[in-house]
């Protein structure tokens, strides 16, 4: 089967889990598919508006906000929780043991930025983080990457200017990679809110 032909089905969530995983791995290497997916994904999402939309019960809103507030201290998801989403700016190596993705929307003075992060973990547990959508760090600031082992504390994993960094240190299974904005030179431990988080 030609994996390029799976783009429409992926956009419609019409792949079986193993097919979807294979396609996501392919997506990291195929710019053509990423571009096509971006287009077809818009069309697929438009279908969402084709459904009748009765008002959800009021308790749903309360329930979501209460659950979010309860997780308030969990700035970073420490539990291994695997979910993938469409990643339009991923770079994957041919041989890797894990690929993690994350997307976030940032508010800045100028409006909105959609930031995506892709982390590719090699068989020797070294990893490269690719981020798209972050501008250059402001004067006197730097981006800092963090490796957060499942259930463990964040470890500083390198400073970078905005797009790609080879992480310092090994990335254990199910680790979370986070990016923060810090003062130039970086910090050994951060209290800042992550700009984007990728779950491997």
């Amino acid at each position, binding site marked *: 089967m030609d994996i390029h*032909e*799976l*783009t*429409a*089905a992926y*956009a*419609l*969530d*019409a*792949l*079986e889990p193993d*097919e979807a995983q294979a396609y996501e791995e392919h997506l990291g290497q195929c710019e053509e598919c990423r571009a096509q997916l971006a*287009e*077809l994904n*818009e*069309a*697929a*999402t*438009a*279908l*969402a*508006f*084709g*459904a*009748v*939309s*009765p*008002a*959800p*019960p009021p308790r*749903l*809103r309360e*329930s*979501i*906000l209460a*659950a*979010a*507030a309860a*997780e*308030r201290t*969990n700035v970073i*998801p420490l539990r291994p*929780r695997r*979910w993938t*989403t469409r990643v339009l700016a991923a770079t994957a190596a041919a041989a890797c043991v894990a690929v993690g993705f*994350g*997307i*976030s*929307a*940032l*508010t800045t003075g100028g*409006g*909105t930025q*959609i930031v995506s992060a892709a982390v590719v973990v090699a068989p020797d547990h070294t990893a490269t983080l690719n981020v798209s959508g972050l501008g250059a760090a402001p004067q006197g600031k730097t981006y800092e990457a963090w490796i957060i082992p499942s259930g463990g504390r964040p470890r500083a994993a390198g400073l970078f200017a905005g797009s790609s960094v080879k992480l310092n240190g090994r990335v254990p299974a199910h680790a979370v990679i986070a990016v923060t904005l810090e003062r130039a030179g970086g910090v050994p431990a951060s209290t800042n*809110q*992550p*700009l*984007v*988080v990728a*779950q491997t």
Partner: protein
Amino acid sequence: MAARSEESALAELYDRYGRAAYGLALRVVRDPVLAEDAVQEAFLALWRTAARFVPERSKASTWILTLVHRRAVDAVRHEQRRRADTLENAPEPSVAGVDEDAWLRLQRERVQEALRSLPDAQREALELAYYGGFSQSELAERLGQPLGTVKSRMFAGLARMRELLGDPGTEVSWTSTS
């Protein structure tokens, strides 16, 4: 970074997109409880990963609805609520009696009109896949068509929908109607 509290941003995001999200989930899972679960899981997934939520001018709706759809399809497949009857015979939630948001109604009519203009085979493939939650393999079996045919129909149908709907432009409308 905006000073706005994240929780109120999440609330705002829900107020804008919660209804569309719930409608989508309900259409796919056809069960109010499962639909609520899918919406809640999607919003919380967003909450756990996003540093800041930006309701205005972003493509937040695409992102949320993508997450909701994924959850809803997972739920349908997980529950193995495979419906023996065809989608045509299992009506979508009725419009009658639904106090539908005017803007959402316009969007729905626009999308449904575009769907109606597709060749039947393409529309059927899109509806069964997106609203029915069927995988391409299930579709091929159900329709008695080769997998390649199903894939071409989905691709041609989606590409045509894109032409018909253009850039959805949904985000712009939100600000003027909310």
